[in-house]
């Protein structure tokens, strides 16, 4: 009979296994990157541009360098290797190269005995600027041909016409990932010209590939190690202080640590692209979509970062989870002097989802149809072509299922206006109950999983069985989402042995696991661990001559025939795999082709109470049904979904970087409004488990969908409560009161 393992091992998949970092994190014992120290360590600090656009006229480091306790002051002249970096295109100078292109761009760094001395030395650097007029309007940038990428889609008959037409214009503000842990790193020179780096990162190998080039050393002279990260959400996919801290360590010959404070963290990482979107939908009188047209402009900031890939996502998911035969989309990423933009949870799909879901509600109103019936009538399903690219959807895609199961979740009870904690103004007692209106809104989304467009997307893992149990070696980065626990569960289930340790590997120890982003690690590194673990089990059974493997050893016909000690006496059983998802391809000049590896859908329903007098919103409940493939760890799934919804609520009603000529006016957690536990709505959810063809045990990535359609659902609910148009997120009080 079979020689495969199953979940009868304790702590395998399907169980809500507790995460190993949970207790250390809540008791304050978890070591984040900012907690690391080394003997003889110096501290780094950064001089930044005070302007969004300015010419650097004079830079004099002599006074800073002469200060006691200062060991190095480095500028662009001190970069020994490649002078620029960047994930897709290395277009960003390591330090300002004569012209600052965004507010807060690094100009110089100082290494000193302590943080205070370092900051005083930064202030002592003589610097003179000639301020330039920044380009801050994305439409102006497009008109001036400042374009990082134009992604067109032309599918079907561009002249097709429907009987009912709905047009709309939408805006999305700049959202910050706002991870609680700021950028931090510790670089330790190895005494032989190389350096070891511990730094907040979502993708150590990609960083490594940029760092060694700028340091002017060989690749194996830089080793980047995973470290404790206090949230990422995309903000750690592009580099920040990585090269700077290594340069200082190599220059001084001493360990150097840098930790950004909150104010410099805001310009110190990429943000969600603000967007302007024009949409036109045409349908038959019975609600069948005939044609959709969209123009999407995303503000890419001064440097490319991941803008090209974000534009691709916004373009290819512009039609949402709906069938339309005739599609025209133009997606643009433009260059401005606004703060940097790049990866953030949802990666281009958040912006278009807000627009297409508003369009669907408007179209339903125009047709006199129930908005969910309109969505179900046009819902994409497995086997359909994507409306934009024409790619046949080969994975499960329960679009109708998520809508049906969402609707089946009971609505919350009516507002108890006697309890001030339930009112939008809360215990501030500002809300008069008679002004409160309740609203309910819906939205549906589709998102790709893993990297797209012919990117060579792979994840390596090494699984080792010895007498003490199993070790899983991976460079995949845990950013707080629970990946380590899921990898343990996968290895336990596939091997049959309960003792599994996840060993974070540095860049010299193992190949890349790819980024912890794009909802991909459960499927990619999870897939690699599963393959390697199965190979380990097969070899162990062959070595031991048995038909089952457990923590005790190898069994044959119900009898233990070899202990783990004996099995691994000569050598551990070890396998390394490089897992790849099904290939993806570049699209043609019309955006047609097979750019994506897998898809997932989700639906959200928001219930809000709106204080129409003061413009305050209390998000009462956000329910969801999500296509997850399989819940490898049900508690972890719930946590990801609840957290993602809260981030979507943030974009709907709170979170926005306020800019003035490219300068961030609210670069603090006092002024950048983040949802807290007090703002968190109740969440009820239905999990739909139709298997992905290639995820481990059919699992799909789950990280991004909760953030995507929760935002338009909240906005739809506020529209339902107020009757207002509300074409821009986040919705501000004045958008509701009209004052």
């Amino acid at each position, binding site marked *: 009979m079979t020689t495969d393992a199953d*979940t009868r091992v304790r702590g395998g998949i399907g169980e809500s296994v507790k995460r190993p970092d949970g207790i250390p994190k809540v008791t304050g014992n978890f070591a984040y990157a900012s907690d690391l120290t080394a003997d003889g360590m110096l501290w780094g600090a950064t001089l930044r541009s005070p302007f969004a656009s300015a010419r650097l006229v004079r830079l004099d480091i002599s006074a800073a360098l002469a200060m006691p306790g200062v060991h190095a002051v480095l500028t662009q002249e001190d970069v020994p290797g490649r002078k620029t970096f960047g994930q897709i295109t290395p277009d960003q100078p390591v330090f300002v190269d004569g012209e600052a292109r965004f507010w807060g761009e690094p100009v110089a760094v100082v290494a000193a005995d302590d943080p205070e001395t370092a900051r005083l030395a930064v202030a002592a650097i003589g610097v003179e600027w000639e301020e330039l007029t920044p380009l801050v309007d994305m439409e102006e940038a497009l008109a001036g041909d400042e374009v990082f990428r134009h992604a067109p889609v032309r599918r079907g008959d561009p002249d097709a016409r429907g009987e009912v037409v709905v047009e709309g214009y939408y805006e999305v503000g700049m959202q910050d990932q706002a991870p609680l842990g700021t950028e931090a790193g510790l670089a330790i020179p190895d005494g032989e010209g190389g350096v070891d780096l511990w730094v907040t990162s979502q993708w150590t190998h990609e960083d490594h590939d940029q760092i060694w080039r700028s340091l002017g050393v060989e690749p194996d002279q830089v080793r980047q190690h995973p470290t404790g990260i206090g949230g990422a959400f995309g903000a750690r996919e592009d580099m920040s202080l990585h090269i700077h801290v290594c340069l200082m360590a190599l220059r001084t010959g001493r360990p150097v640590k840098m930790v950004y404070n909150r104010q410099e963290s805001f310009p110190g990482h990429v943000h969600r692209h603000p967007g302007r979107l024009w949409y036109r939908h045409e349908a038959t009188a019975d609600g069948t979509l005939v044609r959709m047209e969209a123009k999407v402009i995303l503000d890419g900031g001064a440097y490319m970062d991941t803008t090209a890939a974000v534009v691709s996502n916004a373009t290819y998911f512009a039609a949402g989870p709906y069938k339309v035969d005739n599609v025209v989309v133009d997606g643009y990423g433009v260059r401005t002097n606004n703060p940097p933009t790049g990866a953030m949870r949802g990666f281009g799909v958040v912006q278009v989802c807000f627009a297409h879901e508003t369009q669907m509600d408007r179209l339903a109103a125009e047709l006199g149809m129930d908005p969910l019936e309109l969505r179900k009538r046009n819902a994409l399903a497995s086997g359909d072509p994507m409306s934009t690219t024409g790619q046949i959807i080969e994975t499960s895609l329960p679009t109708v299922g998520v809508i049906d199961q969402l609707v089946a979740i009971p609505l919350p009870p009516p507002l108890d206006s006697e309890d001030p904690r339930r009112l939008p103004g809360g215990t501030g007692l500002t809300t008069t109950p008679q002004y409160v209106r309740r609203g309910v809104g819906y939205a549906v989304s589709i998102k790709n999983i893993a990297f797209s467009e012919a990117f060579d997307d792979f994840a390596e893992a090494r699984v080792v069985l010895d007498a003490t149990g199993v070790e899983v070696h991976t460079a995949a980065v845990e950013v707080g989402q629970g990946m380590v626990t899921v990898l343990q569960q996968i290895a336990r289930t596939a091997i049959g042995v309960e003792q599994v340790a996840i060993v974070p590997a540095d860049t010299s120890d193992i190949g890349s696991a790819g980024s912890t982003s794009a909802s991909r690690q459960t499927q990619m590194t999870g897939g690699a661990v599963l393959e390697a673990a199965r190979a380990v089990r097969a070899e162990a059974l062959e070595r031991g001559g048995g038909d089952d493997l457990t923590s005790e050893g190898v069994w044959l016909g119900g009898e233990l025939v070899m202990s783990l000690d004996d099995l691994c006496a000569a050598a551990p059983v070890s396998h390394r795999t490089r897992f790849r998802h099904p290939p993806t391809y570049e699209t043609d000049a019309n955006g047609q082709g097979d750019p994506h590896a897998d898809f997932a859908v989700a639906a959200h329903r928001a219930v809000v109470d709106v204080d129409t007098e003061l413009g305050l919103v209390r998000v009462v409940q956000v329910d969801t049904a999500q296509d997850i493939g399989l819940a490898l760890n049900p508690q972890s799934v719930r946590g990801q979904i609840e957290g993602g919804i809260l981030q979507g609520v943030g974009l709907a009603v709170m979170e926005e970087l306020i800019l003035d000529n490219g300068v961030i006016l609210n670069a603090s957690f006092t002024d950048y409004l983040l949802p807290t536990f007090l703002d968190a709505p109740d969440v009820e959810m239905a*999990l739909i*488990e139709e298997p992905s063809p290639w995820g481990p*045990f*059919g699992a799909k990535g789950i990280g991004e969908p909760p953030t995507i359609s929760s935002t338009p659902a909240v906005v739809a609910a506020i529209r339902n409560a107020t009757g207002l148009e509300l074409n821009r997120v986040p919705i501000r009080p004045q958008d509701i009161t009209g004052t």
Partner: protein
Amino acid sequence: MIVVGVIVAAGESNRMGRLKQLIEVGDRPMLQWVIDAAEASRLDQVAVVTGPVDTVRSGVRLGRSVPAVNPHPELGTMSSLRAGLAVLEPCDAVVKLVADQPEVTTGDIDALIEAWDPELHRAALVRYRDGDGHPLLIRADALAEITDREGDRLLWRLMEIGPTHRLVLDRQAPLDVNTPDDLATLAVRLGHSFPAPPTA
């Protein structure tokens, strides 16, 4: 908590060309593998449901299983499930097994029952490497929602709507043995040699 098993063996084996339930797989008929797996499991009672022309029952040892007849197997799998439940004591849940999947083991059945939380899950099934499959567990109150005529569709719809527990077994799904080719594949998977299938 009473959990019973129903082995559905009322099919007509159209694609096999002979009564597949009784095809020898290794040392016993295919159906006998399933009966034996259920026999040794923690199922409180087991029914074996055959069709109106009962040539199947005589070919197997029922052990503690109770025989049942479905006079109208053409009504679908739910009619057989109900025919089986009719000869058993009232239960809290039923585990559905099928005669043409001899790879399902006692351990699988027990693990499914063990993993099922009667308060949380209206159903449970197995997630294999290549998809979801038998055995299926259905809570008694959920059975009422499924009509016989649309049994198969509604049964899987129930599994989809849930709440369903998916027990993961890291191996290929048990083969549905419907054709002579399937039988040859099964032989390889079980490591047995079977008599050559009859030629048409």
